[in-house]
């Protein structure tokens, strides 16, 4: 199966990257470093899963970073100002994320406007609402939520990390094994063909943005836990890292192609790269240049590989 070999080559790239940093810095390949990486990535993982599903239908969701901040703000304000419990606050933020996704999905699908524009609008709006509900202040919550990001006895990983893995597996199954997932792929491959075979694509196109919004609430929970507070300024530009992870993982911006597992490996590659470069004492500007180059290189590799497969 071609997707299998694809995942293998991505894993190989990840392995080589870890090997490279370990050789340069013997301290890199150690339990604390790996735990640190593992507990950092859940937020980006949720967003990368969201982007993968949307991109497979041929759309894009630029609003995920802002939605994360909005959902996080909802959690903070609801818990601190209204005295709600964490689970209640999280439930409200889930609904908020889904509602925002419903709005963008409906406008872009029924209004036939590119999702790029609609979600760019949502990116601004959601950030604005996040500032409004928090009064532009960081809301400190404390250990009630913070515990979710702390290592547990089980392999030293956090509950959020485990949740992220579960979501990755569920989303991959959704994509490859369910009728819903096959329709997402079919819509991204050839929307006209789907329509002309008598299927109404609209509910699928709208609901995929709702799934994306819901995943933003999960990402918000993860980030809020890590900071033990809600920051309306959080996750600015994180949507771009999520897109990068999906592209590195082989998801096509043109739709129709991609896998959630691939995107997850993309997240790992980005995280290892960032941590590894930091451990070598590379400064922030250089880190950015190298990360940028890796993204473009990954996209090129993917392009060549598909071209070879077609020939």
């Amino acid at each position: 199966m071609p997707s299998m070999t694809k995942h293998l080559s991505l894993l190989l790239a990840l392995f080589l990257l870890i090997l490279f940093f370990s050789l340069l810095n013997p301290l890199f390949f150690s339990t604390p470093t790996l735990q640190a990486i593992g507990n950092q990535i859940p937020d980006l993982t949720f967003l990368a899963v969201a982007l993968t599903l949307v991109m497979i239908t041929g759309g894009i969701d630029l609003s995920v970073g802002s939605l994360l901040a909005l959902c996080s703000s909802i959690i903070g304000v609801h818990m601190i100002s209204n005295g709600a419990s964490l689970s209640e606050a999280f439930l409200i933020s889930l609904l908020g994320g889904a509602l925002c996704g419903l709005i963008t999905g409906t406008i872009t699908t029924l209004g036939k406007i590119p999702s790029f524009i609609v979600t760019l609008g949502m990116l601004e709006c959601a950030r604005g609402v996040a500032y409004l509900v928090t009064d532009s202040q960081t809301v400190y919550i404390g250990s009630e939520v913070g515990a979710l990001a702390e290592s547990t006895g089980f392999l030293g990983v956090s509950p959020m990390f485990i949740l992220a893995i579960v979501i990755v597996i569920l989303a991959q199954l959704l994509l490859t094994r369910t009728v819903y997932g096959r329709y997402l792929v079919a819509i991204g491959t050839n929307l006209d063909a789907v329509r002309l075979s008598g299927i109404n694509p609209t509910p699928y196109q709208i609901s995929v943005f709702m799934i994306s919004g819901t995943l933003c609430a999960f990402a918000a929970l993860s980030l809020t836990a890590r900071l033990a507070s809600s920051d309306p300024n959080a996750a600015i530009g994180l949507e771009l890292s999520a897109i990068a992870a999906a592209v590195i993982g082989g998801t096509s911006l043109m739709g129709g192609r991609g896998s959630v597992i691939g995107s997850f490996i993309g997240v790992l590659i980005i995280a290892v790269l960032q941590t590894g470069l930091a451990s070598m004492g590379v400064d922030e500007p250089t880190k950015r240049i190298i990360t940028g180059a890796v993204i473009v290189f990954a996209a090129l590799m993917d392009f060549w590989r598909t071209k070879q497969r077609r020939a």
Partner: protein
Amino acid sequence: MVPEVLLTLSGIKKSFSKPVLNSIDMQLNKSECLGLLGANGAGKSTLSRILGGSITDYEGKITIADRSLRAWRDDSPVSTVHQELSQIPNLSIAENIFFGRLPNQYGVINQRSLLESAKAALELVGLESLDALKRIEEVDLATRQLIEIARAIAHRSELIILDEPTSSLNKAEVQKLFKQIHSAKERETSVLFISHKLDEIFAICDRIAVLRDGEIVLIQSRHEFDEEAVLSAMSGEKSAEKQSKDRQVERGTTSFNLKNLRTQKLKNFHLKLQRGEIAGLHGLDGAGHKEILKALFGLSDSQGELTLNDKNFKSLPKTPHAAFRQRIGYVPEDRQKFGLLLGESISLNICLNKLKNWLGWVNKKETAIQTLKASRMTKLVYEGPEQSVSELSGGNQQKAIFARWLEHDLALLLLDEPTRGVDVRAREELHEVIRELAYSGTNVIIASNDLKELMRSCDRIITIVQGKTSKEFWRESWDEAEITAATLSNA
């Protein structure tokens, strides 16, 4: 006079995953039009891609004008006019003609010289009245094809390859194209004419070559042309021109009744079908026969009343989804653009509208069985349900789209040019599927510009002129010339 040889192929071999061409030896003379025939998958397009320069890793030797094809490289004297035109829709006609060698100075295009040379080239193909500054997407397909030929002439090609050039042309346009082939020959240009249509090949070519399983199995000169021999050479068996099954149309039981269909183009169109009838809609480009199918499948704004198998729908379906729920199916004209999920598996392509519920699991075993069943009915040749549909030949791809509409117990199946670009054998098999469906009670309406195809499969042909029925012809009493005349008249 001994003809001068332009092109020599010796021992051409090429394999992809399996051998496609086995040692092709052939010559093509100057000013000659050679017809290349063969079933889908016989190796025609591979051969044309080798000659056109898009495949370079082949075995054997090709010489053109005493020079190896490999040595020609960028200035190759071969131009290919592809079945799917490879023009750039957003650029002007002139820019398309000279794309790759636009007259320029320091990168700035010399507009006047471009326009003048473009006009000169267009004049040679009889398009002197065309505005060369128009964007190419504003021009109809037939003209675009002639523009491709103008491009070949402008590039001083010695060999023009025409790959299925007439598949989207009507009769008058085909005649225009033939005129251009004649004048190309007068300019000592050679033409390689690849087609499925025997009558066209016989009409225009000086010689024909039949390709089967990667080998040339028959070469005939004009005075020896023999349809029987060509057909049996193509299929590798004794020609078995299947007789149309004795068709049973129950006259008198109306199972489809369309009243007062109105769209932008159609004014009060009526159509009644008897149970099990296959009806053909025929007309010139833009006559409106394609619009009827689109209106019935919810693809255009339309009003009208439809009765289907005793069920009366007050209005026509507004979306394809609604049409599907009324058990109406549709096979679009352009299978690549509107039909297939290219790059996806055959099973997904076939079972696309058979996967049942919203969030349910895809039952792999069930879809594999459905794929097998549907492919048996259409005689679709494939390796396995997970094979990519892109790897199939044109005929098999069309069968996959047909297969999508099987097992739905359709009340009505609408077919738009169902066998365009499909080889002779696959066409027969598709017609068989259509007959089976009609036999089991599905009403079938075929819209086509290809009268031969309609005459082969339909019980009745209705000619459409300017959005209205001009005449009707039943199988027992129709005449090709009369039908053609009816598409022109203002009834």
